[in-house]
């Protein structure tokens, strides 16, 4: 099982890595699923992805929830995602405002007139989808549907 956690730092890389390492040392042995803890940090020093692996899936799931809770409670992160969709309104707005920075698929051509027109045509189907009530408000502000 590979679990991705993405977070924005307010602290320095060194500080966070030290704290995470300390957390991993504190968890009980049978839950020490952090046996393989990989931190990948973006060049800006604002985003990390953490994968827990090398243990039973149930154990990893429990450890990942514990780790996410600890990270949230630490106050050192703007946002900790652990696969859940249950974002607060503020978190959703922050992600939406930064959607083009975060999306790997965005290029200059994404915003050309032709591309925007094609994107809007494709998004017509979102209005007939069962998800329409949940996604339609995003369409005017995000024709390319960045992901």
């Amino acid at each position, binding site marked *: 099982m590979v679990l991705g956690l993405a977070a924005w730092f307010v602290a320095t890389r060194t500080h966070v890595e030290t704290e995470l390492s300390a957390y991993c040392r504190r968890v009980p042995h049978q839950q020490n699923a952090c046996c393989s803890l990989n931190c990948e940090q973006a060049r800006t020093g604002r985003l990390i992805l953490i994968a827990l692996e090398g243990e039973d899936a149930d154990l990893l799931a429990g450890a990942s929830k514990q780790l996410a809770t600890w990270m949230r409670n630490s106050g050192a992160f703007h946002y900790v995602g652990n*696969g859940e969709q249950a974002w607060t309104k503020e978190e959703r707005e922050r992600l939406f405002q930064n959607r083009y920075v975060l999306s790997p698929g965005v290029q200059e051509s994404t915003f050309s007139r032709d591309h925007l027109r094609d994107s809007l045509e*494709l998004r017509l189907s979102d*209005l007939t*989808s069962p998800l329409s*009530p*949940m996604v339609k408000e995003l*369409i*005017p502000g995000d024709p390319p549907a960045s992901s």
Partner: protein
Amino acid sequence: MSLAQTSPQSERAAESPGWNVEQLIGSLAKNRQAEVRFEETAFSNLLTQPLKTQGILRFTPPTGLEKHITAPHDERYLVEGDTVLFESKTKGTNRTLSLHDYPALRAFIEAFRSTLANDVITLKRFYSVTLQGEPRRWVLILRPLDKAVQELVESIRFSGEREHVSSIEIQAPDGDRSVMVITTGAP
């Protein structure tokens, strides 16, 4: 949808005073077809004209539900238990979600799944349920109980005749709505 506009008082079924939501949903489940065809029209503030789609609805009791849009594009929404699969041939995308992570979507899906599965208890966990009309022609109105869902959906109206659903209208609080007309059983 004219039934929804008549007064509830006049619709009260004098000849069937014991008729209620449980009886209606029970009879729908007993007589439902595994597949039906639909034509849906979406009205949105974002559109200059309504969007029409066609497709097939499939229900596999007790938890399987599929909406397959066949025209003008090809998209499938397949619910099985707590998992939802979205597949768009037009967009070339394929995505799976867990309803645990999307409570609003779960409430939305239960409007259809619980109604078709004769699961009134689950239905009433998510919606206030009102029945208007009489067995011959009726309207079942669902209004979400959860505030977050209320922001997305104002009401879902099933209209029908006897034990068959003839249309489903979804009204959003911003004025958008969609009307799905159940045309015939799929071949």
